[in-house]
């Protein structure tokens, strides 16, 4: 990795939010919120600057402590990491702005949750650290940071149901972390290195590696709430405060997905088989169908949105079967790889924007009504046209109607599915969209329906609605620079690449 330019940027991207979080502990509530909003712009501009630098010079590294791997740790920001860091920054700024007014508006009834700001910035540092990390054990430390902050934020409201859901979230996340750590120990024991690039070179197929891959993948699947392990997500995400739900759904679960993508495409190529990809694809398809169906049955707005997260995260997993070549296929001539990668990245971005917007809108509805029963959304269009519009736009992106980011993601996924000949994923993708349309239109129908007898909506600060609407619009705007973004991402080592395990690694029986 010596050939890449070094810069202080990667260290600052972790250090600055960490510094802001620590500093905020010394302020009282008002100062914390002010520091939080200003700080979010600082970290955001740093992320923007990093993005520009990466576009100019390609991958940038920072060798921590001056010790090169394998002894030391290396931070690297390549185009893939830059996109995730940029996404976190944009969503983070909007959520910070929203939180500033949200906690002010709620002061009379509940309180101002002074712990939100330090925890959110610690979480931000953890997320940036995860995206920058190039080391198996360091990745573990960053997911630990993320888990603790995410759980603490989830229970912040102090309500009994939030604490109950938070405890379950904590246990699931810890089991996931332990499984991951076990796999890391096995890999370190058998290769003597933790650096992802070195591991990609020295890892040879074998039982230990296959087992390590299985436990690591299992751990990450639990953390990203993949199908059989999704049980913790809906209660935890729906019981949290609105800005927290948005953070958890839009950003935190993406961390585990990012790790899985990195590890599968850059490290574990030699241990993967076609069947492994199919298995992950099946859990993804099951999550899409189950999550969407459950969302359709909900009678509470926030629970509906949370179940929809389970489904939308399922789409991300359906990218993996396309990345792994079937026996006899060749990654160099596989023209479906670019669509599959595009689908994955755009699904991450479109879902982050749309889901953040929906949870923020849910917060507005709760603030106006005092509860979040879907029935009470009646006449929303007349009372709060902006929020109704935000829900509609974000919902359209979730369904995948053109010209939204969600459309681009799902269209590319379908394209990849048909080009690769793995047509059997198509029904799940289409059925998922149909079910999504079902619950989104259910919300919109109520929003347009006239109210018969109804409590009036309490006034909600306009600026909150603007934040939610802008995020919803963001899920459409990301389509405009799509072509440039894909070009930018092609500078990443793994982007657009496939996995040819058996043939390249020599295989289990060939040697």
């Amino acid at each position, binding site marked *: 990795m010596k050939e890449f330019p*070094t810069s*202080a940027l990667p*260290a*600052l991207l972790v*250090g600055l939010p*960490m*510094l802001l979080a*620590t500093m905020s*502990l*010394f302020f009282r509530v008002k100062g914390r919120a002010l520091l939080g909003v200003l700080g979010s712009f600082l970290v955001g501009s740093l992320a923007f600057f990093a993005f520009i630098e990466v576009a100019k010079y390609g991958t940038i590294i*920072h*060798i*921590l*402590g*001056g*010790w090169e791997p*394998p*002894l*030391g*740790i290396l931070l690297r920001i390549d185009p893939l990491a830059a996109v995730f860091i940029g996404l976190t920054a944009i969503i983070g700024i909007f959520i910070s702005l929203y939180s500033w007014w949200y906690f002010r508006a709620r002061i009379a009834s509940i309180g101002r949750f002074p*712990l939100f700001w*330090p*925890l959110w910035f*610690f979480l931000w*540092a*953890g997320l940036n*650290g995860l995206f920058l990390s190039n080391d198996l*054990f*360091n990745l573990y*430390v*960053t997911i*630990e*940071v993320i888990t*603790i*902050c995410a*759980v*603490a*934020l989830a*229970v*912040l*409201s*102090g*309500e*009994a149901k939030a*604490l109950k859901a*938070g405890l379950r979230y904590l246990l699931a996340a810890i089991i996931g972390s332990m499984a991951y750590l*076990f796999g890391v120990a*096995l890999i*370190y*024991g*058998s290769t*003597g*290195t933790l650096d992802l690039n070195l591991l990609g070179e020295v890892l040879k197929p*074998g*039982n*230990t590696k296959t*087992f*390590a891959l299985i436990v690591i993948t299992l751990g990450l699947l639990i953390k990203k709430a993949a199908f059989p392990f999704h049980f913790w997500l809906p209660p935890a995400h729906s019981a949290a405060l609105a800005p927290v739900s948005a953070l958890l759904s839009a950003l935190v679960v993406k961390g585990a997905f990012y790790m899985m993508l990195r590890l599968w495409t850059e490290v574990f190529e030699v241990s993967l088989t076609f069947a492994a990809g199919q298995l992950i694809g099946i859990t993804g398809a099951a999550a899409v169908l189950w999550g969407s169906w459950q969302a359709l049955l909900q009678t509470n707005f926030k629970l509906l949105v949370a179940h929809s997260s389970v489904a939308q995260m399922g789409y991300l997993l359906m990218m993996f079967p396309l990345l792994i070549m079937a026996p006899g296929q060749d990654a160099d001539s596989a023209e479906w790889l670019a669509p599959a990668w595009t689908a994955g990245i755009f699904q991450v971005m479109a879902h982050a924007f749309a889901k953040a917007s929906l949870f923020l809108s849910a917060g507005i509805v709760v603030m106006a009504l005092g509860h979040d029963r879907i029935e009470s959304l009646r006449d929303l269009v007349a009372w709060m046209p902006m929020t109704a519009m935000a829900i509609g736009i974000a919902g359209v992106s979730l369904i995948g109607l053109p010209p939204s980011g969600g459309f681009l993601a799902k269209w590319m996924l379908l394209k990849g599915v048909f080009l690769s000949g793995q047509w059997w994923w198509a029904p799940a993708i289409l059925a998922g969209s149909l079910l999504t349309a079902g619950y989104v239109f259910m919300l919109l129908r109520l929003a347009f329906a006239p109210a018969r007898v109804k409590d009036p909506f309490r006034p909600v600060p306009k600026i909150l609605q603007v934040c939610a609407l802008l995020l919803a619009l963001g899920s459409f705007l990301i389509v405009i620079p799509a072509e440039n973004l894909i070009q930018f991402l092609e500078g990443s080592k793994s982007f657009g690449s496939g996995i040819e395990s058996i043939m390249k690694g020599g295989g289990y029986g060939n040697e």
Partner: protein
Amino acid sequence: MDILIDSLLAILTIYLAFRCMLAPKLSKAVFVFFAFGLMLALAWIRLGAVDVAIAEAAIASGFMGVLMLDSLRDFSLIFSKNQERLEETASKIPIKKDSYHWTTALALGLGLILFLLISIQAIWEVPQGGGLTAIAEANLPMSGVEHPVTAVLLNYRAYDTWLEIGVILMGLLAIFAAGGLKQYRKPGLAPAQDPLLRKTILIFTPVLFLFGAFLLYFGKMGPGGAFQAAVLWGAIGILLHLGGWTVFTVIPRRMRQILVTIGLGFFMILGFTQMATGGAFFEYPPAYAGFLILVVETLAAISIAAALTAIFAFLTK
């Protein structure tokens, strides 16, 4: 002889783990957990990982045990209060039977055994030795310390340790966040007036302080270091609290904030300074490495000890 000791240790550890899980009473489970932690610490010593053994004995067994004992007392208070009400309602509502099937238990058990077998097989295939021990030791002269574990923690992988010190602070914040709701009002902790207890605590305080300081300084050359020292210093705070000197609540707010954050903060500012002077994040100038590491460790130990005391003070408030 060795194999005898090791197998005895292994059997005892597993036996105690089972006893802990199957204990009919919570109090018994907590005490067996103490014994289990000590066995685990001994096992770490037998494996040659003395650093881990000290941490296991001090944090996992010691500090966790104290917290468990404390919650045990709360439980007993809550239960003795609610006992009558509970019994009253229990007689009215028919007890719901657990939907516990032996088939699921069997499937789970078989799955666990299979997982264990595959794990053992996978661990068996891991080659002996290797790792980064050789190059970690080769770079020791440059690192400013003489113990490879300390060099890894405070120099080669200082970034990880910095994040971990942050994790402890975040854990403290998480406990504050979860404590927003008090399900049960606990009766206030009457300060212990037992003169014997107070005298004993006063005798222990300097001993613990000295031993902690020794572990901290000795970390440069052998097993020990910030985390181990911090638990001993944290124990001072907890003991003083138990004796009725509520040290942590007496200290002014500002001071408390500084105590809790100084470890993370100093480490971070040091990193930024190193970057400002042209180095990398956490790149020590070799001449000052030993001294800087000792300062970082001392401040980290103070912060962790303060965090542990704060957790105890907050939970027993």
